[in-house]
């Protein structure tokens, strides 16, 4: 059984990866409330792509599951799973559990 804490940790590791590509003043906090897409987002579209791919790689590494997060189903969901770190963590939990 995958714990939500485990998923939070792997998302935070993916944030480390994305931050390594960002200028020091553009790096995002490892905080559930950070908005990552849409209005007021802390990441631009390229950084979001990098985050999604980094999260997928972390899931494969940590949980041994190969998944595609940014698929059509996710895009059609009423509540955008890529809106914030929290919504992303919750969405991954739903997908992998």
């Amino acid at each position, binding site marked *: 059984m995958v714990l939500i804490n485990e998923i939070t940790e792997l998302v935070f590791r993916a944030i480390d990866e994305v931050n390594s*590509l960002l*200028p020091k003043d553009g790096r995002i906090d490892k905080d559930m409330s950070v908005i990552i897409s849409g209005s007021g987002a802390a990441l631009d579209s*390229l950084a979001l792509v*990098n985050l*999604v*791919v980094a999260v997928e*790689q972390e899931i494969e590494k940590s949980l041994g599951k190969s998944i595609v997060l940014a698929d059509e189903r996710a895009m059609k969901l009423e509540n955008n799973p890529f809106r914030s770190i929290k919504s992303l963590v919750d969405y991954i939990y739903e997908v992998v559990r």
Partner: protein
Amino acid sequence: MANKIILISDFNLSNFAACLVNDDALAQTEAALAPFGQVMQILMDSSAACWQDKYDCAVIWTRPEAVVESFSHLLMNEPFDKQELMKEIDAYAQAVKAVSSRVGTIIVPTWVAPAYQRSFGPMDMKYDLGVSNILMQMNLRLAQSFSGSANIHLLNAQRWVENSGKNAFNPKLWYMGKIMFDNEVFREAARDVEAVLKAVAGLSRKLIILDLDDILWGGVVGDLGWENIVLGGHDPIGEAYVDFQKTLKSLSNRGILLGIVSKNEEGIALEAIKNHPEMVLRRDDFAGLRINWQDKAKNILELVSGLNLGLESAVFIDDSPLERARVREALPQVLVPDWPEHPLLYKSFLSGLRCFDMATFTEEDAARSKMYVQEASRRSLQAQVGSLDEWIKNLNIKVAVGQLLENNLTRTAQLFNKTNQMNLATRRLLEDELLRWQGSGSRKIFVFKVSDKFGDYGLTGITSLQMDGNKAEIVDFILSCRVMGRQVEKTMLHVAVKYARSLGAERIKARYIPTEKNKPCLDFWKNSGFEFDKSNFIFSWRGDKIYLASQWITLEEGFNER
């Protein structure tokens, strides 16, 4: 000062730019992205907007199918014409070469194909049929096209891909962001680009200083005796030490000097080096050694200055974290890698260091280690004969002066870009820039080859002059540290003054431009006999006076003009 790099590609290099700019371990870099997907237009159009800024370096990174149309036919298993394919590569190479007039250094990663692209499967490597085989031929053609261009560096992207593992090509990044590679590939590439720029700037390391026990062999020779140290034999660790020594030897063969700083009894250590049958490195492979019980930092300082090198040229290898920490603290300019604990990893770790990367390779580089060993013989003579004049007289030094020509251009550019201590203006000029400089106005570049009874130093000195009416200026005065302090400097000045006088110069001036490293040059000029204007660092000589060459040196003029 930050490296300014322009990135030209047919895929998204934003992540690569981020790796170049944001990695704290790399030198400060500014990276600009040229409009994406317009490679040929940008290469061929020098008036394109992206060329308004001045860059030190251009990285031109393409997918083969994007610039060589015939290759895209091959990928579709459609008929393709190999001759046409080669013509397209030549056209691309020509466009890359055209960028030479806009930037000093051009970096072109080789073309690579994703591992999942299997072409004809088992026939992927079949000559003139499989995609991988054709791609190898295409890269070879590129390498041939660039072989005469010293400022174009074709880098092996396959190595970046291999080091990055199975995610090197990530289809998700491609479809979501037109990003060809995973960030690990870009990080590897960024490190190699930095290594090229450092090498071009003459910042490569030139000397490896080695500990002995548990570095060149296993065990403490003072306790075990040379017969019992771990080296070679049918033993994985013994074999690993031999392989590590072979890697050091191969570096030495390409001009990297080796030295020893070890806490040991000198006699016992030298006995091991001389007698152990599986030693790859012998006494003559080491340009200098300090084997005693003194502080290693002090020993390193003495060894490096004895070789006329700067500390920033040196790398120190020691298995003891304590000794490494001591040297790091006392001599921060020396590179002290965190050495792996296990000898089985020594060879791969050393081979992976980028600090010895070279931008060019000349005969002088190949002979450098031998030259330093000869230098030790010279110093031994100095100790025997006493006075400096006597020593120089006994060396039978010969200086041959000639012109800057195509056949010595690479070495001349290398000296321009690597020499720090005896360097009047520390101008850094690449091959094309040197030719352009000499070709405009009344300018002349002299090159000097030096030899003595112990051996040949090769091309080690440069003097450049420019005339302005009846005034002459010595713009560059460069001498390799290998021949400093033996009156070659005086002979070079003699040649420069004689030439200026022959053109009617009434005054010959030289402006010293201080840097952190060229004080030895100032010291020489202060004692040169030239008048010195301290307020603006200008030295001058009256044109009606002869400047005498060293009486102990035989001067041969026009060695490459006959």
